[in-house]
């Protein structure tokens, strides 16, 4: 009866009376044919587009309408340096997909190598961002100095927080793999972490272009 009630409620169908027996049912069956976790991650990423869109729009809105004192973009930006950190983040997307390809092959040694490489590249990017923030602060730009300072630190800081969360996530997967708790059957865990990581990368592609590369008004 319990089995039938579960099915009627739309939950996982079972084939035997013992719901906990190994292989008794598919624990991931859904009405959409895709797993809830992966679908939830995509919906989260879609909603995050609106979140980042708000910060990017705020930056664009106040671009060239600087209110307040302090240095401006032209005084501060070091394009070669930021290009190098952007390149590092882009390469971390490559190591991330290589980690996924490795776990799909069941090559756990390479999974750990690529996960660690991705986390290290992400940490290098964050290190670059911390260096950049420190330099800007030394030059006199703080979050409350001007509209440019507020919108710049908010947008890039919010992105940096995403990268930091991603690094923690990757390191936890690396730790699980090191203890043998990330079998090939859990490849989707790596894929979902990868989706988040690539999203952080694509958002930076937009931020890098709009903030750093697009010519400033009056330049």
């Amino acid at each position, binding site marked *: 009866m319990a*089995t039938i*009630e579960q099915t009627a409620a739309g939950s996982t169908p079972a084939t035997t009376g013992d719901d906990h027996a190994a292989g008794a049912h598919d624990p991931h069956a859904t009405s959409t044919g895709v797993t809830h976790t992966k679908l939830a991650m995509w919906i989260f990423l879609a909603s995050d587009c609106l979140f980042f869109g708000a910060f990017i729009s705020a930056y664009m809105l106040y671009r060239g309408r600087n209110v307040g004192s302090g240095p401006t973009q032209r005084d501060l930006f070091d394009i070669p340096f930021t290009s190098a950190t952007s390149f590092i983040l882009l390469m971390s997307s490559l190591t991330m997909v290589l980690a996924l390809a490795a776990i799909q092959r069941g090559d756990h040694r390479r999974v750990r190598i690529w996960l660690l490489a991705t986390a290290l590249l992400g940490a290098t990017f964050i290190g670059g961002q911390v260096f950049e923030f420190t330099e800007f602060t030394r030059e006199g730009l703080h979050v409350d100095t001007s509209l440019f300072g507020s919108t710049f630190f908010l947008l890039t800081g919010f992105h940096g927080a995403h990268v930091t969360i991603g690094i923690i996530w990757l390191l936890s997967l690396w730790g699980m793999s090191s203890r043998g708790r990330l079998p090939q059957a859990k490849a989707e865990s790596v894929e979902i972490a990868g989706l988040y990581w690539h999203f952080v990368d694509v958002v930076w592609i937009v931020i890098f272009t709009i903030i750093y590369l697009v010519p400033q008004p009056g330049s």
Partner: protein
Amino acid sequence: MSEGTLERAEEDLRAVEHGEFGHAMEPAPGLLPGELRPHPSPFKYVVIAVVLCVVTAAEVAVSYLEGDIPDGLIITLLMIMAIMKFWTVAAWYMHLQTDKPIFRRFFVLGIVAAVILYTIVLATFHVFA
């Protein structure tokens, strides 16, 4: 639970077991749930990374262009290259190209909603004027 509900539930159960809903969760061998086609090979991933690096270098080079080149042209070129990079990562590294379309629909919905919403906001404040 009524007798009729029980019977319907049992029919549903049999249908699910036989994959009759068309939403069978079991992917083909070697595929993850939600995949339609196999992911690209590691070699292809590296080739994509090289393409991304070349486009990024081109972007930075364009941002250094000087002379009589109008800003509008530079901005257009930069935005085209950024969109190319964005879509390349989303399609191949995030596997939108090989996964079921439901993921693409949700993601595109988020992007389109964001673009429409913030274009209206920025236009209201005459940012594009």
